[in-house]
């Protein structure tokens, strides 16, 4: 070795410095907001809001029951029976107050429809309305729901997503529900976790996308094989098929997925529909477990899968969520897709797809900016939703997480990583997976409440604003439950209680909400995009029937406005193509808007 003593000393210092870099950076960037306690005054002063969990006071005592599948799967049952908790917001009786529908997933258990009593409490009315006892043996169990007024009679109808026989219930003007599955022409059996109502052809009638997870050939309660698992951890294409039901009217649907270009057997966990190109036709974004996301662009007559062109179809991960949010107030949707991150084992990072100015052949380009935005690591992430918790005029983000919480001190991660690294013949057969044996897999995780500072940075303040539960979170839904201008958060937990986080934003920050009603468009105005202009800002939101993971938000659009706002106008692009401008808006109101004829 040449080089004098000084050069060698410099080299050694350089080497020590390199080793010190990870240590220093790790200490400088502690993850999460662990340790912080809720101090309401401090939370209001620092972040402009705080949450209180009020499910018990609200009369909601729902606890989700997990599926119990074929005994052949018993060794890894906690992993497989890990989905089914869902929550959707619906005003089923059209009284102007959001109600909640939650699913249960053990055979014989009942789903619940919590009617809003307008006084801070809720009452389960599912049994008397006929949508509780839907998990009967032989029919599978519920894994989610989406609400859409498919016959435009003014009352939202219920599509029940199942590992089993999917069901469609017609809403009889808020007084009961009728099972119309048979005449609708639904498949006999699916193993699905996601569905979205949207009017893909703009005919004013809601159509339905349904995404399979496990292959539909398996009855998970009566298996004759254990080879039901994904054949790859990142490239699996042996999952459930996809369905697109075209609404023919009169309660009948035609399955047209193949005909319109939607062919996939990836393991879909979440889907969302939004017009991402300004074409006037809603596109479809599908987040897949064990693989890449898919983006189906709608040209008005067919769908084209353009995930790779758009930049979202590379780098396979474990997609579990689709939420659209205009986080920069630039009249464009970013897309949030959750994945898995577990220190020491797997760092996928969640994807925050931000649209670029450029396009590729008319397809918008997206770049994953989760790291730069500070909203990348969220544990074993599931449902996430955008919402302006502090009404400051920028969209924040709420993420739930946690996969299997059993023994706190023993982890299944090593065995999980061991098998998932292997060949398809190994990973695809449940009998090759080591038994769970009561261990946890990314259990007891801290939730994330990311506050958007408006300049492109999200800060996790979960503990500081009162979100401290450690349940295995699945679905997150957002609604102004008490019509007071505060966006509340409802969280469904796998094998755990339904939580209701009541929001308490700084009253100095103002807000406005819009309840849209279609006339030529579908009556729920699903797919309508509204841009609010105020104080030199603009923010885009849309009415969605299916968002996040196994969730649906309130159809009403909520905009935070900050202090002393000057409202300019609201521009609505209805699914019919009609563009409507609304002037003379006043803050702190819920404004009903009917599509102009």
């Amino acid at each position, binding site marked *: 070795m040449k080089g004098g003593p000084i050069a060698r000393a410099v080299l050694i210092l350089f080497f020590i410095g390199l080793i010190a870099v990870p240590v220093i950076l790790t200490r400088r960037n502690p993850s999460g907001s662990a340790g912080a306690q809720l101090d309401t005054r401090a939370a209001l002063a620092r972040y402009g809001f705080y949450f209180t969990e009020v499910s018990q006071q609200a009369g909601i005592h729902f606890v989700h029951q997990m599926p119990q599948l074929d005994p052949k799967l018993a060794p890894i049952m906690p992993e497989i029976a890990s989905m089914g908790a869902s929550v959707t917001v619906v005003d089923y009786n059209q009284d102007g107050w959001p109600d909640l529908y939650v699913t249960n997933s053990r055979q014989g258990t009942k789903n619940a429809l919590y009617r809003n009593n307008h006084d801070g409490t809720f009452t389960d009315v599912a049994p008397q309305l006929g949508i509780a006892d839907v998990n009967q043996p032989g029919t599978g169990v519920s894994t989610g729901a989406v609400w859409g007024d498919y016959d435009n009679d003014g009352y939202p109808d219920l599509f029940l997503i199942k590992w089993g026989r999917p069901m469609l219930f017609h809403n009889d003007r808020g007084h009961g529900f009728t099972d119309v599955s048979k005449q609708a022409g639904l498949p006999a059996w699916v193993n699905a976790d996601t569905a979205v109502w949207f009017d893909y052809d703009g005919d004013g009638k809601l159509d339905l996308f349904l995404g399979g997870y496990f292959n539909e050939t398996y009855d998970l309660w009566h298996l004759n094989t254990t080879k039901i698992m994904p054949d*790859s951890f990142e*490239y699996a294409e042996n999952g459930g098929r996809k369905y697109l039901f075209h609404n023919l009217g009169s309660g009948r649907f035609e399955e047209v997925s193949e005909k319109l270009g939607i062919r996939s057997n990836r393991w879909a966990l979440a889907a969302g529909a939004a017009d991402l190109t300004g074409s006037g036709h809603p596109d479809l974004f599908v987040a897949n477990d064990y693989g890449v996301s898919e983006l189906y662009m709608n040209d008005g007559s067919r769908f084209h899968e353009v995930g790779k062109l758009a930049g979202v179809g590379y780098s396979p991960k474990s997609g579990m969520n689709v939420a659209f949010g205009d986080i920069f107030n630039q009249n464009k949707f970013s897309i949030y897709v959750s994945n898995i991150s577990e220190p020491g084992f797997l760092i996928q990072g969640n994807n925050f797809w931000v649209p670029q100015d450029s396009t590729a052949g008319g397809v918008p380009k997206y770049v994953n900016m989760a790291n730069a935005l500070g909203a990348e690591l969220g544990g074993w992430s599931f449902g996430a939703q955008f919402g302006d918790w502090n009404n400051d005029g920028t969209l924040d983000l709420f993420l739930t997480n946690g996969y299997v919480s059993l023994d706190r001190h023993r982890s299944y991660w090593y065995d999980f990583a061991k098998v998932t690294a*292997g*060949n*398809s013949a190994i990973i695809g057969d449940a009998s090759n997976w080591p038994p769970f044996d009561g261990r946890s897999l990314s259990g007891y995780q801290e939730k994330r409440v990311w506050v958007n500072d408006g300049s492109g940075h999200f800060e996790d303040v979960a503990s500081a604003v009162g979100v401290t539960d450690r349940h295995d979170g699945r679905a997150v839904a957002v609604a102004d439950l008490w019509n007071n201008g505060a966006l509340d958060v409802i969280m469904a937990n796998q094998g755990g209680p339904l939580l209701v986080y009541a929001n308490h934003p700084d009253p100095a920050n103002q807000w406005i909400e819009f309840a849209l009603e279609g006339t030529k468009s579908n009556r729920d105005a699903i797919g309508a995009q509204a841009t609010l202009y105020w104080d030199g800002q603009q923010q885009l939101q849309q009415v969605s029937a299916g968002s996040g993971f196994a969730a649906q938000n309130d159809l009403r659009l909520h905009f935070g406005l900050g202090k002393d706002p000057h409202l300019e106008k609201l521009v609505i692009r209805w699914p019919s193509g009609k563009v409507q401008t609304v002037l003379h808006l006043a803050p702190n109101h819920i404004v009903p808007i009917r599509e102009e004829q």
Partner: protein
Amino acid sequence: MSQAAIAAPAYKPPRPQWKSWLSLDNRYVPPAFITLILLAGQLSFGILESYERTLLAIATSIATELVLGRIFLGKWVNLASAYISGISVGILLRSPDFWPYAVAAALAISSKYVLRFRGRHLWNPSNFGISVVLFLLPASVAMLSIQWGNNLASMAVIWVLGSIIIWRVRRFHISATYAISFLVLALIRSWILHQPWLAEVSPITGPEYQLFIFFMITDPKTTVRSKKGQCLVAFCVAFVEMFFRFDQSIYAELYALFWVGPIALLIEMALDARKRRRADAAFPSSMEPNPAMPPSRG
């Protein structure tokens, strides 16, 4: 990882010139192979976190080698080894951040210049860089865990190609010994842990192990010289790995090599020194050294 070995060949008559045009210098076979793997994996399955991160690792590795080689060896060193180290870091590390790729690559190369004993560096460079970063940064760095599509065909192609190439550079016995040891020890682990044998076999069917077997444990600079010794070390790596696996370390093979590799080299050096002492005692100091004694490899 580093450049695979080129054992000193016996004299052969020079090849016709046309043959040499078609034959790639052995030094460049492993870099060419790993580049092929990277491109095939990325174009078919998108295995990389991103091209930028991998290029950063390669550039850092090469720049570090150029600078340190110039200062401490007084020459512009051949960059094949640095290229393999950089590309290995770029393929094997998974991190949403950029900087771990640069740090791991710089650590890998600088370890060759810092952690030396009797003129030899002790750690396989990329094994050192990747292991340190994985150990110190579990919250933001992980190892490549995805597969080449999981199907048997692509796995077989890599195994066959890798075996041919590693055969050509005369290191096949190392890879084979390790693979066989792993499979046998998997059986033992399976029996002790009461787990399916295929669950224990599973890791070796993934790409992480393919890279480990073909590029890392075969590194000529950080393996012992004798063929038997190389096989013994390969077995020891698999054996120590078993205990890391009992401790549920998913980076067991890397950590096993991290410990076994340098210890094996130190033992070899100690044995060499003992032989030299005995030789010195047997021959008067005025005599010429025995030309059969292997030269020290720097």
